[in-house]
């Protein structure tokens, strides 16, 4: 039995310790908002937070999640109300939507550390989150928008 804490809730799962956290989250906990895209940490669709850090759950053995606070897209806010999620809606970012759980988790982790990121900061922090639909221009705008709102500057 492996004990992990996801979105504030304790779970016990019976899997080999090498099982990637991604598949435990999706298939054992039934939290399918976190996506599989590549399995080799090259696309970022599987991004979750571990103690506030954005990590790629597809290459993180579940054993390494033990003792950490794991947060998935479902745990980011009660009902899609996180500032970043709201900014994503305001900027009409999504297309197919598949990569955006990961995009939003990476953006939220960036803003938690760097509340006023420059374009270069965004390029660095979001470099590992691919979007085949090509929504990058809006992702950038949404991150700036969320930062502005955080700073109390209100809507741009």
């Amino acid at each position, binding site marked *: 039995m492996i004990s992990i804490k996801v979105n504030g809730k304790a779970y016990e799962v019976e899997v080999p310790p090498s099982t990637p956290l991604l598949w435990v989250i999706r298939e054992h906990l039934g939290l399918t908002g*976190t*996506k599989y895209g590549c399995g080799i940490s090259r696309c970022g669709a599987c991004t979750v937070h571990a103690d506030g850090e954005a990590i790629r759950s597809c290459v993180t053995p579940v054993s390494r999640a033990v003792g950490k606070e794991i947060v998935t897209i479902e745990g980011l806010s009660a009902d899609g109300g996180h500032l970043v*999620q709201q900014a994503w809606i305001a900027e009409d970012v999504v297309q197919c939507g598949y990569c955006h759980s990961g995009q939003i988790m990476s953006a939220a982790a960036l803003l938690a550390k760097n509340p006023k990121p420059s374009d270069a900061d965004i390029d*660095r922090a979001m470099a590992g989150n691919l979007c*085949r639909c090509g929504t*990058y221009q809006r992702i950038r705008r949404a991150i700036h928008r969320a930062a502005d709102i955080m700073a109390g500057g209100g809507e741009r």
Partner: protein
Amino acid sequence: MNDSFALNPFIRIARDNSVTIVVNKSEMGQGVYTSLPMLVAEELECELTSVRVEPAPVEPVYSHTIFGIQATGGSTSILSEWERMRRVGAEAREMLVIAAADTWKVARASCRAEKGAVVHESGRRLTYGELAEKASAVPPPGEVPLKEPGAFKIIGTPTRRLDAAGKVAGKATFGIDVTIPGMLTAVIARPPVFGAKMKSFNAEKARAVPGVREVVEIESGVAVVADTFWPANVGRRALEITWDEGPLASLSTAAMREQYAGLARTPGDVARREGDPEKAFSGAARLVEAEYEVPYLAHAPMEPLNCVVDLREEGCEIWTGTQLQGPDRDAAARVLGFAPEQVKIHTTLLGGGFGRRGNPHSDFVVEAVRVAKAVGKPVKVVWTREDDTKGGYYRPMLCDRMAAALDGGGTLVGWRHTIVGQSILKGTLFEQALAQGKIDQTSVEGAADTPYEIPHILVDLHTVDTGVPVLWWRSVGHSHTAFVMESFMDEVAHGAGLDPYRFRRGLLAAHPRHRGVLDLAAEKAVWGTPLPEGRARGLAVHKSFESFIAQVAEVSVDPAGKVRVHRVVCAVDCGQVVNPATIEAQMEGAVVMGLSAALYGAITFENGRVKQGNFNDYPLLAIGEMPLVEVHIVPSREPPGGIGEPGCAPIAAAVANGIYAATGKRVRRLPFRPEELKQV
């Protein structure tokens, strides 16, 4: 109780006033779950906030109005539904108004519909939710006049996506997220070489992995079936399969390139012949000649392919993100010996499609059905990224030999274009409809029908059969022809000593919509004005899917040969606009997909094997490489054209022409190769 009442096969209204619109097109990011409801709501007179979308089952009433099968593709969703969705909205509105008039015992003409309610001239008001039950019993009113475009309130207004909330909350359900009771998960070991046959495998070793339940051989390989994905994936590695690799074991891109280039120097099947090309070339004052080449491309949707099958004695249910529900259902029925009606397809959201999820061979559905049949339990087949990248159905590799004849005055008088590549349509249900004689239109579209006014033209085609599975890839033939045509037209302009914009303009006098976007893009990019040191502009214009696109790319090339695209000005004339927000998004996205292909995209073969497997060796554009994309829409009342694909076609040429303007180096083979562009 929130009962809902069907007013027609596309619209149900519930007592809580929610309007459910049954959408027969698959949502893969292109925005049909927003644009089609907009068409309905315009005539129904309801607010978009009250709309819910439900994917259509496979039934004749939901077939594509042009293709006659249930399908999403060819950038035709608006074209297919433009009239019908407004009509069903208008008919439902009329039924609601009749129901209200009857309730109040007043004349129909004294009632009008607005914002989800019917209002009487006295001020009395009944909501659609209150009227729905009664309206559902009103006989269909027949033809109801539709609004004139000038009266549109929703159509033409930028509208945010209706499916965003679920997608940003991680609550949207894609095929890969579907779970049904008792479901097992399978991964499949497919041949390493197309057409290879399995000789032997070690089922015991795979079965020994905890969680693995079954190891079964199917037509396309060996399925390892487990409680969940991970043990199935681990089990697959233990299979120790040996293959009889068959005739394609020595397939190599190097050999194919040689074969294609050789063929391009010989006459092919004529796709278009006008005037006297031979004479035009023999009398030419100046010749421009070049060979072009584009590689195989994988679609690489972010959601790898997957399919859930629940097979029972009396029927079969399938959950998958597909662009071809109709043919997929029929293919599943054939495999199972069922009548088509015994197979039910639940269309989920698609984590990208780009053509890969619209396979006339129904590969990922048929395979999952075979696994379910072999296992006798509900099963989800999941493709890994490597399975997806190596699994075939690529945009074909093509080679082009181009020649242009200029007269003494620099006028383009002759054009010869020989294309070599595989047929996408051969052996599919679309072959008869879309192939003319020996010519697969998807091999020559955008080339044989070039709008440039050239008196003597010959376009011919060699259709080769390499055994590599090919398929439409966003913008299909145009993904190849727009690059070749617009790059070579640039070469010809420079050969004639003329500005590439003015040169094109001069050859498009009879094509005002081409000219319209060309002029708009040139104007917005301020064509011909200086740029910062090292930067240059390239231009391309191309029509596809009944839409006209011109793009101006601002480009620089660093000393190591790395291409950087700073800005893309995109002018689009897609006829009547439904949602300008979607058009902008699709132009941005199409530019990115075209840039990923131009900068990085290539599927290549060595010893019969696909060399690429994942995003490390089949890279996509990342956010730091994103140019600023500006979209300018030409106002139009022409019939609606497509918008998902056309923006993808011209971008590679626009950038390649910019590279030439910046460096004097002409790119004739995709993807761009830094080693060819670096400063020595």
